[in-house]
């Protein structure tokens, strides 16, 4: 960024030498780190990353791309993306013109620095440039302010990437709850009759993994984990791993590719095929396919199922795959749900949920109406009106917690002030010179 705003070659921005500041060792590290050439390379790589990250959404889900390309250290970019781009926009045939997107024809991939690495080095580059080259003066206040804003924006993305959580709260009219469902993570849960749950996180549900834990009633072997599944109408067979819609239509669950960034109508429905093993042995007690289609909150109460059970030490445990549950110290009850439509049409005009929030720790006990552009904010979380449950019998609230939500706004304001100051001062200087 210093490349476009400032030039170290100018006579008024001399490099400061080790004789004035710091030790020679630090100087040896900082000087190449502050290089303008490095800035240009980083920007070029960042542009390439955005380009390939955008292309990758043809095949992959938006969050998969965010994780693989932008919130990672390195990414292996498949050559197939280049072939697809060339074919789509310039009709350049690949090695097999009949199928330019054939992965076999365009095998292999090349490495590219991921977002974390590029962002980190960019930040280091910018800070090093300030230490090595820039000298503070009121004349440079605008530039420095702009850079502070840019640094804040990068820190904001770091905070968002590390700490932001998007989740959902699903409620039917008259129902109250004290938990939210993580939108992107699932867990396998064993619940006994008393309500005690033992949960295996998604990171331990990869194909081939075996999970043993003293708290679990059985050992669990993961046969296959599917990021996404679909429902196909079923005829014959049984309902053991399937679901039944509220109107009696039977469905079986089948693996499918993940929803892509360019075409995705719903959140991915993960599924996991697991074997329940007698503790400490390889004796298979049962094998079942568990999916999010069997989780009420994922389906908006549209599908029914009977969850499998396992017995151990005289207790019976119900087993379910569900979105990762985050319990809260407060409860939210849905009192009323409104779905207004434009007169004479079925076009939605407004959705609104009237909820009763009770938080014993903060003393909150209030009724709040949440509508499309009027969210509820509580304990650093924002509750947005998101969806409706079928038949308008309830609501789906999107709950977002992002400790860095203010930083992008703040950084934009700071950058704007910096630009105004920088260009204002230059304009003033120019007009005064001209007048002279």
């Amino acid at each position, binding site marked *: 960024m210093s490349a476009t705003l400032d030039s170290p070659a100018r006579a008024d921005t001399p490099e400061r030498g080790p004789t004035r500041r710091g030790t020679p060792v630090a100087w040896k590290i900082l000087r190449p780190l502050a290089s303008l050439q490095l800035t240009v390379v980083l920007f070029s790589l960042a542009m390439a990353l955005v380009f390939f990250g955008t292309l990758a959404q043809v095949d992959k889900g938006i969050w998969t791309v965010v994780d693989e390309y932008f919130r990672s250290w390195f990414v292996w970019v498949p050559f197939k993306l280049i072939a697809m781009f060339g074919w789509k926009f310039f009709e350049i045939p690949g090695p097999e013109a009949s199928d330019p997107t054939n992965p076999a024809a365009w095998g292999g991939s090349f490495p590219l620095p991921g977002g974390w690495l590029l962002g980190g080095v960019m930040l280091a580059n910018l800070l090093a440039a300030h230490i090595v080259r820039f000298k503070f003066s009121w004349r440079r206040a605008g530039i420095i302010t702009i850079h502070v804003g840019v640094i804040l924006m990068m820190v904001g993305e770091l905070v968002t990437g590390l700490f932001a959580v998007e989740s959902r709260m699903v409620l039917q009219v008259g129902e109250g709850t004290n938990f939210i469902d993580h939108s992107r993570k699932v867990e396998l849960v064993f619940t006994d009759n008393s309500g005690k749950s033992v949960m295996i996180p998604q990171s331990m549900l990869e194909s081939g993994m075996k999970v043993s834990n003293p708290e679990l009633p059985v050992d669990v072997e993961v046969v296959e984990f599917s990021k996404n599944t679909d429902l196909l109408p079923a005829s014959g067979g049984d309902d053991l791993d399937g679901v039944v819609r509220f109107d009696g239509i039977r469905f079986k669950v089948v693996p499918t590719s993940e929803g892509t960034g360019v075409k995705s109508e719903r959140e991915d429905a993960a599924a996991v095929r697991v074997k329940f093993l007698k503790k400490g042995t390889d004796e298979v007690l049962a094998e079942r396919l568990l999916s999010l289609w069997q989780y009420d909150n994922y389906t908006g109460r549209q599908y029914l*199922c009977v969850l499998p059970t396992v017995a151990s030490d005289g207790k019976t445990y119900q087993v379910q795959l569900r979105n990762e549950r985050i319990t809260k110290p407060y409860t939210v009850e849905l009192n009323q749900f409104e779905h207004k439509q434009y007169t004479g049409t079925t076009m939605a005009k407004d959705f609104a949920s009237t909820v009763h929030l009770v938080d014993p720790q903060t003393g909150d006990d209030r009724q709040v109406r949440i509508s499309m552009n009027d969210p509820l904010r509580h304990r650093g979380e924002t509750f947005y009106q998101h969806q409706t449950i079928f038949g308008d*019998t309830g609501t789906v609230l999107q709950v977002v917690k992002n400790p860095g939500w203010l930083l992008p706004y703040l950084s934009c304001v700071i950058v704007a002030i910096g630009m105004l100051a920088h260009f204002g001062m230059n304009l003033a200087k120019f007009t005064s010179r001209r007048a002279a």
Partner: protein
Amino acid sequence: MTARFVRCALLVTLFTAGCSKPDAVRVLDEPVTRPPVKDMPPEQKQFRTLAALIPGDSVGDGGPNWWVFKLSGPSAVIGRFEADFNTFLDSVKASSDPEQPVSWTLPTGWTKGGERQMRFATLIAPEGACEIAVSRAGGTVFANVQRWYIQLCGKERENDVTPANLYDRVRKRMVNGRFLLQVDFAGPKDPNAGTPNMAGPHNPHGGK
């Protein structure tokens, strides 16, 4: 200079540090505190309905999807045959065979009755004390369950059954590999006294 460098290094380290600890199996006590469902006072439970819904294999034929099995009448009578009804449900098998879309084993002493309009079959209890009506029905689970409740408790209490408490009133289980929903309602009104069937059960098999 050194202090600046340290600050710079700290910021860069933040990128590389990784701030989350690895996931692990976790335990959570989640006491289930569902609000109690509204029920009729005991003195008003003169009549009772035991009913079950099983999804059929009707995909593509455009017909209703549910198989309905219903035993209703005076509470004292239904109580005598409750065990028979449950035994009967345990034997029900839905199938994709159009010649025999559903089959069952009759409890001891029960007989198959004659053809009736709107029914797939009628199964008569010993001495004709009561009967199980087998039919097909469309509509949602909620529409069917609420209708049965209204037949027993009256339209004025229809809001006792809501989408939020529906599955607190319904037992879900697996029978012969197929899904089954079962309800047990009691109320002051005779459910066989001619309440119209709103969800539109029909009999595509002509009572065979």
